């Protein structure tokens, strides 16, 4: 108890020194927590946008289709299929199921005026599409795709690139299943502006019943079944259980994470980077703590000697220094967490205008607009404990160094 009291009071003996070193630790904490919040927010938004506009919670298609799609090749019309009844039943029976819609994706050149641009054409079932995807909610002009109609819906960036307005003509040129050039032509029906930038440039929506006649595939063929479930956790577990059920078929079941490998690896890199920064700052903090303990010990040689003369064992003196270092850790961690919480509060509620700070699109992130922070209690706890641990570990050696000083030298230090 006394050791604790002494350590606690020693902590405030050199206020400036303590302030500097705990500031460094607090800075480490703040940096980590804000980057963490930013990272999680960014990944959350990215995955959210992927789920809402690109690949929903679960997608099911032929294995070969995904292999070629992931490889950046043309989407193969040969790998389309007619969904079997049992598949739909299994899907509908999975945990947290909300909606399913079939799509027929294929690669094409979008041609309007003098320009040509490679796009992914997503032919959709107009009745069920809205249950899974949110593209229609982000319609800024015109109307969404209608069954049997030749009109397409494009993103705002594509409309800008081609200088297109509602009612303008377009041509989609592609190769049908037999390899022949085929076209779909009609008018631009609607323009969407989604928060997923890639969706605003490279994707065209068209009614499946219209497109299918030009594709050389059978009327009911689709490329993927897109499924929305209640939440992301259920998406992962339901994808897993569906995958088990379709194990011995040509079909592959993918969760939104499987489908966005790039994001998943980006996420891993992001974390690595965060921890790298954290490690750097903590090393600086650790050096600061070692320095503090050494200086304190030098200042207190007589005191240490007296304590030893009074009969305190080496370990008890070490404990005084360790407690002091831990105290610095607690103060740095606490101050850091409090300041982070304050800043993060704004970050969570008001967000950051992404366009001002980074070019997310060029980084390949499916985000735009405002980025909001996230509360992550486990990060706060983790960093708080980590800072104290680092402080303790960094002070072990200098503490022993101090406590091992001969009491005779210590007393007659003058």
């Amino acid at each position: 108890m006394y050791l604790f009291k002494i350590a606690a009071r020693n902590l405030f003996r050199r206020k400036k020194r303590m302030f500097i070193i705990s500031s460094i630790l607090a800075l480490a904490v703040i940096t980590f927590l804000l980057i963490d919040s930013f990272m999680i927010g960014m990944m959350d938004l990215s995955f959210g946008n992927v789920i809402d506009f690109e690949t929903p919670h679960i997608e099911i298609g032929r294995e070969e289709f995904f292999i070629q799609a992931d490889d950046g090749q043309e989407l193969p019309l040969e790998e389309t299929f007619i969904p079997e009844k049992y598949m739909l039943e299994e899907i509908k029976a999975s945990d947290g199921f909300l909606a399913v819609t079939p799509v027929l994706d294929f690669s094409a050149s979008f041609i309007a005026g003098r320009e040509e641009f490679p796009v992914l054409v997503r032919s959709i079932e107009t009745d069920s599409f809205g249950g899974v995807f949110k593209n229609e909610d982000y319609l800024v002009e015109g109307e969404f795709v209608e069954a049997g109609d030749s009109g397409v819906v494009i993103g705002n960036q594509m409309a800008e690139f081609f200088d297109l307005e509602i009612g303008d003509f377009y041509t989609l040129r592609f190769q049908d299943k037999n390899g022949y050039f085929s076209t779909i032509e009609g008018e631009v029906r609607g323009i969407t502006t989604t928060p997923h930038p890639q969706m605003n440039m490279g994707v065209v929506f068209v009614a499946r019943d219209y497109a299918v006649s030009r594709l050389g595939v059978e009327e009911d063929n689709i490329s993927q079944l897109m499924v929305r479930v209640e939440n992301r956790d259920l998406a992962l577990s339901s994808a897993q259980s569906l995958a088990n059920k379709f194990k011995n078929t040509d079909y592959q079941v993918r969760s939104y994470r499987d489908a966005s490998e790039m994001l998943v690896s980006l996420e891993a890199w992001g974390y690595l980077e965060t921890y790298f920064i954290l490690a750097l700052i903590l090393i600086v903090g650790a050096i600061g703590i070692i320095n503090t303990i050494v200086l304190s010990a030098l200042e207190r040689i007589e005191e240490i000697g007296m304590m030893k003369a009074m009969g305190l064992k080496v370990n008890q003196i070490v404990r005084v220094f360790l407690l002091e270092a831990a105290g610095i850790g607690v103060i740095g961690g606490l101050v850091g967490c409090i300041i982070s919480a304050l800043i993060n509060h704004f970050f969570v509620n008001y967000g950051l205008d992404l366009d001002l700070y980074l070019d997310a699109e060029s980084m390949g992130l499916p985000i735009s607009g405002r980025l909001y922070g996230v509360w992550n209690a486990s990060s706060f706890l983790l960093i708080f404990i980590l800072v104290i641990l680092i402080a303790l570990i960094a002070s072990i050696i200098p503490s022993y160094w101090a406590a091992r000083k001969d009491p005779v030298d210590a007393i007659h230090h003058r």
Partner: protein
Amino acid sequence: MRKKLWYLLLIGGLILFIGVSSNFVLAEGLTATEIMERVDDNEYIESARMEAKMIIEDRGRKRVNEFYSYLQGENSLSEFTNPRDRGTRYLKLGNDLWMYFPAAEDLVSISGHMMRDGMMGSDFSYEDSVESQQLSELYHFELKGEEIINGGETYVILATAREGEDVSYYQRKIWVDQERFVMLRGEYFSTSGRLLKEMEVKEVQEFRDGRYFPIEVVMNDKLRQGSRTTMKVTEIDFDYDIPEGKISLETLN
């Protein structure tokens, strides 16, 4: 004596008849397939070294690419020589296409669809510029009639893709010169009957062995407005002995 004269006349006439008519007189009775086989004889390149210019006119801008190619059946190697693209090489082996960019010193494998896209931003796809298979292997033909182009008689032939062949254009309408058996005009259609491209031959040259080959061709991508590309063959050697291994990935970089 008279009999002999008759014989001589008959033989001489036959010789004359066969000799003169082999090109056009007999053609009267040719089927569409036979016509196209003769076109293939002229235009299909088994092996050659070629130098050519590609003049790309797009929205009022004009660009000239120069290149030479080694052609051998389904394989070819082309290298651009004009300053802007100097050193850029294309290698086609069967259905695979690679590009080599000298600036990046990098080799890029190009997926199938690129072969059907415009080459160097032109109206020609890589496939259009070099027919790597004989048309008669890829299409069924139907004689649709005769028309006069630039004062010359032509056959109008409708080519429809043979099932199972790897063909970009489902149908082609082809105008074949009745005298020289080269294509003078072509219209390429999609499965739904939409006109995709228009090809027009501006100049045909006669080579050794009486072979006719188009040396100036204008291609017009009908889906893109205001663009056309002229391909001018400046030199072509049909008997060029291409060194072993010349058309290979090793020579690409």
